[in-house]
């Protein structure tokens, strides 16, 4: 009898141990699968873009024709205007969002004599809320509020500065400038919160040392704190850039989707995401493949920017 008991007991423990080990391996497998998901996405895009790789090669990146009926009905595709639009609109967004976001981040991390810390917490929370607003709501707000509000400004810019290339052509309602502005608002929370983290991570000794030597608040910030937080700050810019380049709906709604390169930012343009958003649902044949090629280019650009940002921020 005692023997039998021991046997069932050890059989049970053996089973429990196997289940346990199985569980650990299962979580490990799932975890590795999540990490490899990016590779799965890349391989699906490459697989479906084969036909376009074969047809257009690198010329796809240099051509600005997007014509499903061209090339004897086979379709002629190239995304130079979209690459240009993606880069210009996102850099325009950075130009606005970085000074603004860094300013807010400094306001949030410094101690001010007249500002209670509760107000800073509230401000941080409200800026974070901007990140929760859906992209398509930014789009509809852009169309009905921002675009009409910008008409006087764009007219003024064109009338007074038409000699400068970027303001050289009469303003249209949807335009590169509007897209840049909307993107700036959308990446503001990203830039602000990462810059804030970077500034808050600077050891307080450095600040105290600088102040003790007689430096003012801003001399300390400019000469000590900002340089110390440099890599985190650059990381926040890169992550903002990646967000801006991949952003789709709001841009597709306010940029005007014109398939040509125009040096004037008061004129409509197009980006890779807006091209995908506009064309995918109705595409067929080689057009799908060309869109997959465009998506592949977008993914590579944003991934490289992201990885660069992750390395700079170094938060693993």
């Amino acid at each position: 009898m005692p023997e039998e008991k021991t046997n069932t007991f050890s059989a049970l423990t053996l089973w429990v141990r196997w289940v346990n080990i199985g569980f650990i391996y299962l979580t490990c497998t799932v975890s590795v699968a999540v990490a490899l998901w990016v590779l799965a996405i890349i391989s699906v895009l490459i697989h479906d873009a084969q036909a376009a790789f074969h047809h257009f090669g690198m010329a796809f990146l240099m051509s600005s024709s997007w014509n499903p009926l061209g090339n004897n009905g086979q379709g002629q595709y190239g995304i130079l205007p979209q690459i240009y639009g993606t880069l210009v609109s996102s850099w325009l967004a950075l130009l606005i969002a970085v000074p603004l976001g860094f300013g807010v981040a400094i306001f949030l991390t410094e101690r001010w004599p007249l500002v209670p810390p509760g107000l800073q917490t509230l401000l941080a929370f409200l800026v974070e809320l901007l990140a929760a607003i859906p992209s398509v709501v930014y789009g509809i707000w852009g169309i009905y509020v921002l675009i009409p509000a910008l008409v006087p400004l764009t007219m003024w810019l064109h009338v007074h500065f038409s000699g400068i290339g970027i303001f050289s052509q009469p303003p249209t309602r949807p335009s590169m400038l509007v897209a840049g502005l909307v993107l700036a608002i959308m990446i503001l929370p990203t830039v602000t919160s990462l810059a804030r983290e970077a500034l808050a991570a600077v050891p307080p000794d450095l600040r105290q040392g600088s102040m003790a030597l007689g430096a003012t608040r801003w001399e300390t910030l400019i000469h000590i704190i900002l340089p110390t937080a440099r890599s985190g700050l650059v990381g926040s810019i890169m992550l903002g850039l990646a967000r801006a380049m991949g952003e789709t709906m709001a841009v597709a709604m306010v940029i005007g989707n014109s398939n040509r390169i125009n040096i004037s930012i008061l004129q409509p343009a197009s980006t890779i995401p807006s091209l995908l958003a506009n064309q995918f649902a109705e595409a067929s044949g080689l057009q799908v493949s060309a869109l997959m090629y465009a998506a592949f280019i977008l993914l590579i650009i944003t991934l490289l920017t992201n990885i660069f940002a992750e390395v700079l921020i170094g938060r693993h």
Partner: protein
Amino acid sequence: MGEVVWARAVLMLIRKGVDCGLTTAVTLASVIALVPLFSILLYVTYKGLGTVLTGGLSIFTELPPPPMVEGGGLGPAIVGTLIVVSIGAAISIPIGIMSAIYLSEFSAGEPIAYWIRFFTNVLAGVPSIIAGVFSFGLIVLTTKTFSAVAGGAALSVLMVPVITLATEEALRLVPQDMRQAAYGLGSTSLQTVTKVVLPTALPTIVTGITLAIARAAGETAPLIFTALFSQFYLPFDTEGPGALFNQPIASLSVLIYNFALVPFENQQKMAWAASLVLLGMVLISSIIARTATRRNM
């Protein structure tokens, strides 16, 4: 001597002046940063509230209106958003939690954990439209039809990294003593995780999942060519559960995109009403989730 004193005084004045000027600049930046937020909240409420109030409850059940016809509602879009987001959650919650359990509980000292975390972060940076393209290539091209499942799969690409990283953080907040006590009593890893660690971290995990769901509910780009859009409810009565796999499905976000760009005033009104409903859902759930975590910590 007098000159030196003067020079010092002027220099001091300049330093103070620069200080004040820059302080004013960052204060101004903080005020400017809030303008778009309040503009969006107020304008969406102003444009959407009227339609929602005059429509009453029928807004939440009726079909979207054809051009130039008054009335109508957001019924299929609200139900559609709930269905697609639920599919996304059903795929991503188990995956995200399992991956987080490995990272937090079983990967100590393994160099691979660094790379898993790194690539999970990279996955979090994949643009939402690419998630749609991935699902299009994998599911829509294979099944030859737009569907709720294709939309949910696209959303899961965006939800998995958010849930994984949030859950891992939640698990790390569980004190090491509790694990050691469980192991000391003879528990296996499986028992420790499911009976001690997960229940303790549950409130924080739920917060992370709520934020991921709120974000997914607002997404449009992954849905426009995977779930597409529909004027009607899913035909569960004729198709059964298969309707999830072979029918395009409406969603609030795609309805806003479609109706914002049409010249018909009644449909534009519907787009604003949908914006208000969507914004309300997303903001309220993220505010609740955020304040809840703050209290826990």
